[in-house]
């Protein structure tokens, strides 16, 4: 690019040119994509260096021979050739290059030509990001880049997104990549604010996606090992926009839209009051009990006065709680940016305001963000610059969490969407004039309207984030090709959260929790880059330097009840429940950087990198580690023997790399045993004793880095002048010394311990294609398709000898990771249908003794009932069913026709399974305390012979048929090796229950579904007005567009709310929006 500009300046300096039989022509050069003028575009006579360049408006004037051929060029654009005819005016439109191999790609501590890249790097552009209306740019990255898997945790604005690069390469809880914004490693984790039943806010939502120029995702060791101990999970480099010399622009973007619920409750299918009562009555009758009396539930509520309700009154009530607490959301986003520059300086300034009202009533997210990116050249060889970003968000939250037992004082802590799914029954009234608040049992958590009443509830988080990078880059004058750069960065987050509820929602009186968190991350580096070409065919690039990083967090917590006054704040409460202020999450990291690449004859590339890191998270003897990487590349298309293919395949490169990276995403001080002395753990009055001691961590002195050995081979190709391009890569990551907080037996007195547990392998394929299917400049028609697919597979190679010896695995929820198996296979009982004769759920029995001896789960061949005991003893490792997607990707189509542009983008994920616990909880009458699904009306077992999905409806999950594991089996064939010698049905014959099937905590495959889905992520239709038309009113560019997002979702099996957010989380909304882009 620099070379190109240099040529342009040179041409400009030459001033005028003289041609034989000259003719003076003039014209204008613009971009086909956005219609913007292309200042600096060169117009040269083919075969010579003679020509001119376009001015700031893209205009040019040139004297040329008639009949000559001119070539119009611009960085990043395809060359355009035309013959000078009898016209005097030429309007040239340049198309963006399909693949620009000379394009510079941002890599760690430098840039590199795309052609010379041997690492695996994916890119996402600003245009791709901003197409998707979202509060967080990470969400908008979904499906855009091969190897990058992104899931959104909830449809609540500002909710966290989880980013995984090349699948899980760790059993560690955190496999989040390293995020670098303009050279600054930033905090992307959660947990800063106090969250009581509400959705936590993603700190990445503080970053305005309109400011982002490009995102590079570094995936293999060649690309990431320069980040050493932080590179195992991949590195995401975010580059924000800069001004350009000679081009001053002002951009105003406004978009607004509505947010509809991603899936309607009717699609889930909940019963109304009469249906619910009929099912519950049926269950009670089957248990020999009289019809349901509403007081059976109301008695659990804690309000004073407790509102009562007769059966007759209940039958008349039918509240749709979803309607009561949800709404059609809305958003508006205003972004104003200006940029420009001179030869000595440039600037980019922006301001953003985003106001999103989520689907939950009262919930909103507001962001104010300002940025200043400035570059100066005070000396010829010196560049100084800064990237300053300040953001503020105000997030008014409502509770989303599902409550526990009915009436368990959940009014302030769990309500909202979670409870609408499970706890809030349709016959619960909303209002009660006898209650001082006017609400019906507001403390219950089941009155969702009371729980979001502003007079009784307030949950707000305010976040201030300042990201600042200052850099100086010095071009060493006496050593050509050498520059020294230093960057000092700070990431500052101030997170203030207040949770407040009145005495109306809480038994123990009004309550407030006030948390203020100050988190600071400081990074400083000094590094040099040396790039030289020797003898015309030996090219070297060296990087060397050092870096340190430190972060810490200061928390101030105040918790109190029986507050004074009416303000929604902590104030001066009568009871101070807890107070804490202190420093935590300290980390200090030091690293030495080294990298080199050698290129011979523009086709053979070899490289190495070396990073040596030390981190305070580990003990002194285990603190330092070295992370090397090696790479090679061969550009076959530069070889002579390739000449015969060059017309069809214009580019072909083979590349490969091997290297080590580390992962240390564990909390600080896990190598030593630590204790807490919290006030809440006291015994005795707070005035007498300041706290009680607890063991908070059992230390592992030998704790050290988790190391990933990465292997990567790939091929990059381009066909037909790069109209078709892409790459295919195979990767393998062998992870050793896995860091994991593994479970301990409860008798250890500590729930878990961090350790270097074992080894695993993660491997897969990445495929990405792009093609320009139609590029008809005369019609102004262009159709481009990009597609990416990632196939991922993993295997645990070893755990600790103890775990392997006993066949134990590392469990997490309903899943387990065992040696020889994939990560997080489901480890639950295998459902075998509903017994047609007895009407109870059945599961497959395993050989329990064999499991105790070996840890292997082998079926005995017998079906046994899904009693509580059997559910805990007969879990099976589902080797083919994991919670980890095995493939994901995206398909993007962009069609441009004259001023119109249409983008249709699909993302997809699959190969994994989801457990629908919501279905499990709402398809059993239990104690009549949960909402029920309509499917029970037709799919519950009623009489012998019935083949139904759900068992007989009974009260309290107590069935006449039980199972005694010690009872002699009368059907036993006498084989002493047959594990079925014992275990048989129990039944007293008088209808008394003998079997407990309470399955709130037991899990079986009945509710396990394939998680595959395809989502129509965005459809955007835009129209750019002709420049000639809008320039009359002083506008350079005017574009209007409409965007529909999450319009359609296809799932293979899962019928819950959303396969991405899962469970009872608010589904990702459908958004209907319009927008306008104005450039002045």
């Amino acid at each position: 690019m620099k070379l190109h500009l240099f040529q342009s300046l040179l041409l400009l300096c030459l001033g005028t040119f003289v041609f034989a039989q000259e003719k003076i022509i003039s014209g204008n050069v613009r971009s086909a994509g956005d219609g913007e003028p292309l200042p600096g575009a060169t117009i040269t006579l083919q075969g010579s260096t003679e020509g001119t360049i376009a001015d700031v408006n893209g205009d040019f004037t040139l004297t040329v021979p008639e009949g000559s051929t001119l070539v119009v060029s611009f960085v990043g654009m395809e060359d355009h050739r035309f013959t000078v005819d009898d016209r005097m005016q030429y309007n040239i439109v340049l198309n963006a290059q399909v693949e620009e191999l000379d394009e510079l790609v941002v890599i760690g501590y430098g840039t590199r030509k795309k052609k010379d890249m041997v690492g695996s790097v994916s890119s996402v552009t600003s245009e791709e990001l901003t197409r998707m209306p979202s509060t967080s740019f990470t969400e908008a990255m979904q499906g855009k880049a091969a190897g990058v898997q992104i899931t959104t945790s909830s449809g609540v604005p500002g909710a966290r997104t989880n980013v995984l690069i090349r699948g899980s390469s760790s059993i560690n809880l955190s496999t989040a990549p390293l995020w670098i914004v303009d050279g600054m490693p930033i905090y992307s984790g959660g947990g800063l604010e106090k969250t009581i039943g509400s959705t936590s806010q993603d700190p990445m939502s503080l970053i305005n996606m309109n400011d982002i120029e490009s995102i590079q995702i570094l995936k293999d060791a060649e690309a990431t090992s320069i980040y050493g101990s932080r590179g195992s999970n991949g590195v995401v480099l975010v580059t924000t926009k800069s001004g350009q010399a000679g081009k001053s622009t002002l951009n105003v973007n406004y978009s607004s839209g509505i947010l509809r619920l991603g899936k309607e409750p009717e699609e889930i299918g909940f019963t109304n009051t009469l249906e619910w009562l009929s099912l519950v009555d049926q269950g009670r009758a089957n248990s020999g009990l009289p019809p349901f009396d509403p007081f059976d539930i109301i008695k659990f509520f804690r309000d004073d006065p407790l509102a009562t309700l007769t059966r007759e009154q209940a039958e008349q009530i039918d509240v749709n709680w979803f309607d009561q607490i949800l709404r059609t959301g809305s958003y508006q986003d205003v972004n104003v940016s200006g940029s420009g520059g001179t030869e000595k300086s440039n600037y980019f300034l922006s301001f953003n305001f985003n106001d999103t009202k989520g689907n939950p009533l009262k919930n909103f997210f507001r962001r104010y963000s300002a940025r200043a990116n400035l570059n100066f050249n005070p000396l010829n060889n010196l560049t100084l610059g800064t990237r300053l970003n300040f953001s503020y968000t105000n997030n008014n939250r409502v509770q989303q969490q599902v409550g526990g037992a009915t009436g368990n004082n959940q009014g302030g802590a769990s309500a909202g969407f979670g409870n609408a799914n499970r706890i809030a029954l349709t016959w619960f009234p909303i209002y009660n004039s006898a209650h001082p608040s006017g609400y019906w049992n507001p403390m219950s958590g089941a009155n969702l309207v009371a729980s979001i009443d502003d007079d009784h509830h307030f949950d707000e988080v305010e976040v201030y984030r300042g990201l600042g990078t200052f850099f100086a880059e010095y071009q060493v004058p006496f050593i050509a090709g050498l520059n020294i750069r230093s960057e000092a960065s700070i990431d500052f987050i101030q997170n203030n959260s207040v949770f407040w509820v009145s005495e109306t929602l809480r038994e123990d009186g009004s309550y407030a929790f006030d948390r203020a968190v100050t988190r600071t991350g400081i990074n400083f580096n000094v590094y040099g880059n040396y790039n030289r070409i020797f003898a015309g065919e030996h090219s070297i690039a060296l990087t060397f330097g050092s870096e340190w990083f430190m972060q810490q967090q200061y928390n101030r917590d105040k918790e109190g009840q029986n507050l004074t006054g009416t303000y929604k704040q902590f104030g001066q409460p009568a009871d101070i429940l807890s107070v804490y202020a202190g420093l935590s999450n300290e980390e200090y990291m030091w690293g030495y950087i080294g990298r080199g690449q050698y290129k011979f004859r523009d086709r053979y590339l070899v490289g190495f990198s070396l990073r040596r890191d030390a981190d305070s998270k580990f003990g002194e003897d285990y603190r330092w580690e070295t992370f090397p990487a090696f790479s090679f590349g061969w550009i076959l298309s530069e070889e002579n023997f390739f000449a015969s293919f060059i017309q069809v395949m214009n580019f072909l490169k083979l590349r490969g790399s091997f290297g080590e990276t580390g992962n240390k995403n564990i909390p600080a001080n896990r190598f030593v045993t630590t204790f807490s002395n919290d006030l809440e753990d006291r015994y005795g009055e707070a005035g007498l004793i300041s706290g009680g001691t607890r063991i908070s961590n059992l230390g592992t002195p030998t704790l050290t880095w988790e190391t990933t050995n990465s292997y990567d081979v790939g091929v990059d190709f381009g066909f037909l002048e790069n109209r078709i391009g892409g790459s295919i890569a195979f990767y393998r990551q062998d992870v050793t010394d896995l860091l994991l907080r593994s479970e301990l037996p409860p008798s250890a007195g500590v729930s878990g311990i961090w350790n270097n547990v074992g080894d695993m392998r993660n491997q897969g394929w990445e495929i990405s294609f792009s093609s320009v299917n139609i590029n008809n400049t005369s019609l102004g028609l262009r159709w481009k398709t990009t597609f990416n697919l990632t196939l991922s597979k993993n295997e645990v190679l070893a755990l600790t000898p103890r775990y392997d010896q006993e066949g134990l695995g590392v469990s997490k929820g309903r899943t387990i990771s065992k040696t020889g198996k994939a990560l997080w296979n489901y480890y639950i009982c295998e459902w075998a249908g509903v017994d047609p004769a007895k009407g109870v759920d059945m599961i497959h029995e395993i050989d329990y003794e064999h499991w105790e001896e070996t840890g292997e789960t082998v079926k005995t061949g017998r079906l046994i009932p899904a009693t509580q005991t059997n559910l805990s003893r007969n879990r099976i490792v589902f080797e083919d069913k994991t919670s980890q997607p095995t493939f994901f990707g995206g398909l993007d189509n962009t069609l441009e026709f004259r001023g119109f542009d249409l983008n249709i983008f699909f993302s997809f994920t699959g190969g994994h399974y989801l457990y629908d616990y919501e279905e499990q909880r709402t398809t059993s009458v239990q104690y009549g305390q949960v909402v029920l699904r309509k499917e029970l009306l037709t799919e519950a077992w009623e009489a012998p012979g019935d083949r139904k999905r759900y068992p007989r409806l009974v009260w309290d999950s107590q069935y006449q048929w039980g199972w005694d594991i010690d009872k002699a089996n009368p059907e036993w064939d006498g084989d002493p090796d047959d594990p079925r010698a014992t275990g048989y049905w129990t039944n007293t014959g008088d209808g008394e229950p003998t079997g407990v099937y309470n399955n709130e905590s037991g899990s079986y495959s009945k509710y396990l579904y394939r998680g595959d889905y395809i989502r129509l992520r965005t459809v955007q239709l835009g129209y750019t007005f002709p420049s000639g038309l809008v320039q009359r009113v002083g506008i350079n560019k005017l574009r209007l567009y409409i965007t529909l997002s999450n319009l359609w979702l296809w799932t293979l099996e899962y019928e819950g709310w959303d396969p991405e957010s899962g469970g009872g989380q608010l589904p990702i909304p459908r958004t209907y929006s319009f927008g306008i882009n104005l450039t002045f």
Partner: protein
Amino acid sequence: MMNKLFIFAGLILFTVHFPACSDEFFELTNPPEFPWLTVSEFERAAVSPYNYSFFSGWGGEFFMTDRVFRECMTDVVYRIPGASANFPIDVIYNRQTDIDDGRNQGSFSAGYKAIGLINTALDFYEQYDGDPFPDASGDDKVHNVDRIAGELHFMRAFAYLHHCYRHAPPPGTPGFSKEKILPYRVSFTDAEAATNARFVSTDTIYDQIERDLQAALELLPEKYVEGLHHPSYAYGRADKNTARALLSRVYFQTGQWELAKEQIDALIASGAYSLDQDPIEAFNRSDVSRGNEVIWQSINYDEAHGQTVVPKDATLFTFLDYRAINGGLGEYFRRSTWHTYSMSNAVAKQLGWMDEAGNVTPAALRDKRYTQLFYRLEGNRGIVDDDPKVYEQQYTQVKEPRIWGNKYFRGPDGMHTNVPVIRLAELYLTRSIIRYTEGDLSGAADDLNVVRTRAWDESVAGATYASSDQFVTTESITAEMIHLERMRELAFEGDRLTYLQALVLPIPAGERTNTGEVPFPYNGMYWTIPQKELDFKLEN
């Protein structure tokens, strides 16, 4: 050229070593700190096991959950049909001890958390040969450091005893010294030991309990002395008498009755406790005070602790709602909505508190325990407007009268009512049966009469107890009398099961129709070890 190379190398060195790295760089501002740097801080090690034992609201502790489990496995209680709660009420009542229930898991975990912390603190104490704070004053060393060590020993014994109650075959049963059933941890653990618990038989655990209680007896003071002890020690903590009382329970349970009697004798001789107050006085304290007979109580009066720590599992087998105030009766009437277990009518008749027709008896009315600590509701009559303080209105299917335990949440601030853990009456009754078994009928009668005298309501009976025909003599006393008196005294306090086991008596079925009595060796009467623990069990 060489100059440039030197400059180049110099710049590399500059970038790599500016600024220079040193070990100081990695030093944390707040490095992890040992939790007990002073004697005063060591007090926090002492209180933590109490917190684990008594606090955490719904489950999660082990004291109250165990009480409910143990009591509701016996004949004392009756499970109200149709009553429901988010609690394993049928699992308990039906003694389905093979079920790996979450409440038991919580108790198991809480107990071992307490033990883990205690082991850490005792290791610290023993590492320095009992003098971990050499700069402390001599008084502090004796009255606080040693006393804390004593409390730690005491609480480890208490936690292990509950584990034995819950998960192990009782003493004397064939499995007692054979089955390696419980994880045994007496020292702070490293990662290897944490993962690999050593399972031992129950007798080994009981031996440890005895050793711990003997150590506690050595180290604990007779009582709290203001100015000498840490001020928090004044309330709800173990002293020498508490250790004696718990040790007597252990000796009684393990058949070492003479030793049990010795401890009881010493405790009674201390004169620190008396049965000179009405029975309610042990159960109605929501402040720092205690009833005169209360040897140890869990203190819940700390309102600032909120309701998250009060023992709500008690709502399963007691009459009052935990939010009751001023005793929860009369104008403050507030009944538990989770109430699931009443007293068995069969037992009520055994106790003489209900006649065969279901009517209340004169014997009940003159018994202060019945009138103060139990609540009788007549059966539901199908009348909507019936007084719920008199007639059953919560469970309309309950047509017969029922007597409900009413020993919890009785203080002015219900949920913050302290809960007696060991009372003097229990020890009198224990000594009574020991004396009776040893043939000391006079002594047995004396002890029994002490308890019965306190319970006797002279104003109702119209005569003193000593002058009544209920007075027990050497001639009239029987073992059954002592058994029944113990039920009257300790029903709904989790005593019945272990008492019967200590005497090797069968556990009656009560009103259960789906099971019979369970004789020695009480197969199936202890709960399975949580599967999460068994997952780590090594054969040893």
